[in-house]
């Protein structure tokens, strides 16, 4: 799992590349929680474009981060969701939670 972080004014965009599963979800969660705790951006976008796989452990990492981000008033969401990640987000019903604009689109 490659994690790249970009700052742009009030927005932090964290791009994930690789497979989000038991091996990688702990690290992703830690990285994102660090952003929430230490940077507290207005917007925290998780770019899923290069995520080639995402199972329930991946989803749960992303959901946990949402809880702490929301607490801090951060606008937290996933962008560029497609492929397996889109399927697992849809099946488990967490898509509207993590990709709020999705149903609008």
């Amino acid at each position, binding site marked *: 799992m490659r994690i790249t972080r970009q700052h742009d004014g009030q927005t932090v965009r964290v791009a994930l590349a690789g497979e989000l599963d038991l091996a990688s979800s702990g690290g992703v969660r830690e990285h994102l929680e660090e952003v929430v705790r230490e940077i507290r951006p207005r917007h925290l976008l998780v770019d899923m474009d290069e995520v080639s796989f995402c199972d329930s452990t991946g989803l749960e990492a992303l959901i946990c981060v949402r809880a702490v981000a929301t607490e801090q008033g951060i606008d937290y969401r996933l962008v560029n969701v497609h*492929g397996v990640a889109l399927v697992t987000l849809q099946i488990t019903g967490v898509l509207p939670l993590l990709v709020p604009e999705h149903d609008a689109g």
Partner: protein
Amino acid sequence: MSQRSVRIDVPAGLNAPGEARHQVTTSLHAWGFTEPRWLDAVAVVVSELVTNAVQHGGAGSVPITMMTRGSTVLLSVADDSAELPRRRPPDDRGGRGLMLIDALSVRWYVQDDGRGKCVHVELQPYPGEVAS
């Protein structure tokens, strides 16, 4: 109708789900199951089963068997625990693994295998002809 089977053992640990997905999809590919979306669904089921086996089983390795017959594919993952996997309302900590298995399989059930148990999943049938 062609029948195939393979037995895969991956070392228990954080990398077990990834290795299992890789080996299972490689075998399926070699057998002519090449439809990418179907393979994605299989990878999710493998990942959930192996993650559960790592979390609830003992050390050592996770034994995986896969059998095919026509478009039917059966996947079995054993672990040392005698507990039955049970659907539960999801929360921040989990509860979405069985939900995904439910949605992406025809049925799943558990057998006592003497050591612990074995979870068997009948995957969604392969759509279309199996290339060979």
